[in-house]
């Protein structure tokens, strides 16, 4: 394996600032406990809604419930961070991933298990979770199968 020219491949910053869980976001940040990624889904128009909202912002239906998605997505954009905003961090890849199910639902994430210089816009990726305390952070890695 060749060493990526831009330095070590970290999975993220040296310190992860975690979300504060509450009744609106707990389902999302703990969804990875069973290995599935979930978003709120509208019971009316069936669209996925992210970030969580009190009503469906498309059709204004109030019946929203967490629903699992495939976990597959496409890299919409990315950057390799080098600046020491968080001291002690090796370069890490901040990706923006659009989920397969709906092209206006995106996640800011870290792209892992891939050398930084092999990341491409349009690359197909699958979710993988990293547990930190009571939070399961969705990360994405190159898709393994069809």
């Amino acid at each position, binding site marked *: 394996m060749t060493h990526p020219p831009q330095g070590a491949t970290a999975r993220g910053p040296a310190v992860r600032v975690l979300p504060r869980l509450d009744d609106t976001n707990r389902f999302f940040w703990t969804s990875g406990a069973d290995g599935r990624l979930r978003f709120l889904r509208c019971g009316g128009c069936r669209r996925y809604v992210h970030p969580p909202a009190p009503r469906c912002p498309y059709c204004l239906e109030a019946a929203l419930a967490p629903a699992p998605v495939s976990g597959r997505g496409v890299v919409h954009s990315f950057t390799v961070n080098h*600046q020491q905003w968080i001291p002690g961090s090796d370069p890490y890849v*901040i990706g923006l991933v659009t989920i397969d199910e709906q092209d206006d639902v995106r996640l800011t994430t870290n792209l892992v298990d891939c050398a930084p210089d092999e990341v491409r816009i349009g690359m197909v990726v699958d979710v993988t979770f990293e547990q930190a305390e009571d939070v399961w952070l969705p990360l994405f890695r190159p898709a393994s199968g069809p």
Partner: protein
Amino acid sequence: MSPPERLERRSVISGIGQSDVGRRLGRGELDLTVDACLAAVADAGLRREDIDGLATFPGAGVGTGGFAGPSTPEVQDALRLRLNWHDGGLEGPGQLRAVFAACLAVAAGLARHVLVYRTVTESSAQGEGGRQGIGAVGGGGGGRGVPRFAGVMQWTLPYGAVSAANWLAWIAQRRMYEYGLTREQLAWIALNARSNAMLNPKALYRQPMSLDDYLGARMISTPLCLYDCDAPCDGSTAVVVSHVDYAPDTPSPACHVNAIGTALRGRPSWDQFDDMTTFSARDAAASMWERTELRPGDVDVAELYDGFSILTMVWLEELGLCGKGDSGPFVEGGKRIALDGPMPLNTSGGQLSAGRLHGFGMLHEACVQLRGQGGARQVPKTPEVAAVAAGGGPIAGCMLLTRGLS
């Protein structure tokens, strides 16, 4: 039926002022602000008793480390102003929101002469340390003891996306993918800024910069390097927005407000906005052109926000000053955007080289150029129409200024 009146045309910029600008000046934010305000009032041919409105962006207590500047109550009291209208706030179409609000207040008759200021002391606040990200935390082991975040930042901070540099890097990367933008092209925003800064006595950085210097600079967040990011400074900029009736009495030519652009039609989000290559510069520019008979070809000089170089590229395209996706080839080589080129750009050196005066430096310089007071950096044929843009991502506003009525 005649078209509706564009109320911003009842306003002019009658005076401009600026404090000392530099790295770690070691002076207080109110001290710098008073300097800039008094200079602007005098420049407008007014006395402070004439000032009956006061506005700022973003107002006190916002952000960290020298970002916000003093509140309007502090400035009002320091100058003992008697105000008929006042406004300070963060939410709105970018840094220029305070100027837009002043224009409309003057048009509505709420005030006649509004002092508008923006002050930063980010250089002193950062001291010898490096630049901070939002929610940046100290190093060491795990995350225990680190504060947790709710609200919109919860979606980005866990992933180390803590700075606008990271989010703007996404724009640049996406533009490389969609339009074939190269770092060698992007470089010319920084190189042009430096060339102009060398002619600006108040600019932070005045030594020459070469393409090799740019390409050899350390990476911040790929593809953005150090020279794609603006330079924190200390300084205050102020303008006086007056009713157009006052224009004949200004000591220097009044700069007429022809149109303002304020729209935000996509989702107000760094990661969910529909078009990552434009963000709301698209909407702000479109709404501005909907309010004027002027066309992009009428623009003689452009002062386009360069908090990050890539934003200037976005504004060039969205304002129609070059073709969609063409900003890379347009700026490459620098001739088209030079002082003596067809579209002089960021003539003071911009925030990249003159200092991060956060949008108000662009506005100040547009007035300097329209008034023909640029000295060594004056655009040769004194411009009649200037485009000013500030902000990026989901926070953006722009305006057209003219010398004389248009």
